């Protein structure tokens, strides 16, 4: 009995170790790739994502950039984190990780319920996935990676996903209703409605990307300026002068605001906007009206049969 239990324990711990490796290894791989590919430079280095690979493709070469690789690595690591938190679930919460996992799930369900209503139950997985991926992507620049959210292509991908979801939800109310929605309040507004329809993904993508990237640009500018300043002020001291001493301190404070606070805030806002847009695409009243109409039609059919 004890032998068996010990064997199970050992297997459990081995799986745990594997999952922790799945969490950490992708990020380490990204750091190694970054170290291998970064060119040497001394000036202000404000650039977009590095290009790792260019694959030949019919129209345009298919480009594999740093942000793509990082975002896939972050997805893998997030998957590892989720598997780790839910590994060895028991009916009654005993371990710390199960408590954390339950807390996360409860919070997400509460958030979705409060903002979208009972009708959209099941969306908490999407919202939690978007929030976690966005938060982890923004936080990944704390370990020196290029934050994937600082690349417009990544956030645009998410925004297009949300746009497709919103359109699909609108189509639930019927295709004609969807078309009719463009001519409201009067038919003259149709072109403006079209523009506002397509401004949703653009604004969502640009909001997230602009916040993260502007933080990165400001951080890089301040860091370079402080390096120059310390060379100017302390450069005449023999040994100490070679170390950019003034770079200590201020960039860390900036990083707390731009990387941690702003990144988490943008993750929350992106998830919040997803919820609001999806739930606004098919409002409660329209849904209730539709249910009523359906019930009446059913009744009539039953009456006609009788």
């Amino acid at each position, binding site marked *: 009995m004890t032998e068996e239990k010990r064997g199970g324990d050992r297997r459990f711990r081995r799986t745990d170790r594997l999952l922790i490796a799945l969490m950490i290894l992708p990020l380490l791989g990204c750091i190694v790739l970054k170290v291998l590919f970064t060119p040497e430079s001394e000036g202000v280095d*404000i650039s977009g994502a590095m290009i790792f690979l260019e694959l030949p493709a019919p129209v345009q070469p298919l480009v594999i950039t740093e942000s793509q690789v990082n975002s896939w690595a972050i997805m893998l690591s997030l998957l590892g984190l989720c598997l780790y938190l839910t590994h060895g679930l028991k009916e009654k919460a005993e371990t710390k990780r199960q408590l954390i996992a339950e807390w996360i799930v409860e919070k997400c369900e509460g958030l979705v319920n409060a903002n979208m209503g009972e009708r959209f139950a099941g969306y908490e997985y999407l919202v939690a996935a978007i929030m976690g991926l966005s938060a982890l992507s923004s936080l990944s620049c704390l370990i020196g990676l290029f934050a994937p959210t600082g690349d417009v292509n990544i956030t645009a991908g998410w925004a297009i996903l949300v746009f497709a979801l919103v359109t699909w939800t609108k189509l639930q109310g019927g295709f004609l209703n969807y078309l009719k929605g463009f001519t409201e309040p009067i038919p003259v507004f149709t072109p403006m409605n079209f523009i506002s329809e397509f401004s949703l993904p653009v*604004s969502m993508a*640009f*909001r997230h*990307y*602009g*916040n993260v*990237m*502007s933080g990165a*640009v400001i951080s890089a500018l301040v860091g370079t300026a402080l390096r120059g300043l310390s060379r100017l002020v302390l450069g005449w001291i023999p040994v100490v002068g070679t170390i950019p001493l003034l770079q200590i301190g201020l960039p860390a404070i900036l990083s707390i605001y731009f990387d941690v606070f702003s990144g988490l*805030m*943008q993750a*929350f*806002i992106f998830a*919040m*906007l997803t919820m609001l847009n999806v739930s606004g695409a098919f409002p409660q009243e329209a849904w209730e009206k539709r249910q009523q109409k359906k019930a009446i039609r059913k009744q009539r059919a039953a009456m006609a049969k009788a």
Partner: protein
Amino acid sequence: MVELAMGIMLGLCGVGAGIALIAGIGPGIGEGQAVAAACEAIGRQPEAKSDVTSTMIMGCAIAETTGLYGLIIGILLIFVAPGIFSGVLKDTVLALK
């Protein structure tokens, strides 16, 4: 001649970026008003603080969008546009020759 054209192009890119960032005025005023109203609301109803705060942050994020459009245009004008425009300029000069 090409140098002059290049200089004008780079300078105008910088000026354009500066003008684009005037867009920051609007969100600044708007967000200030939003926060002022939120402070008032919290003062009147301290128990609704968390609700007011989250709604305010949401509204601020949406109001910020116009400013971010300006910022992105400014950044594109400084970091991306000169490369594209100098390529166009070179092509034109070569075509003229």
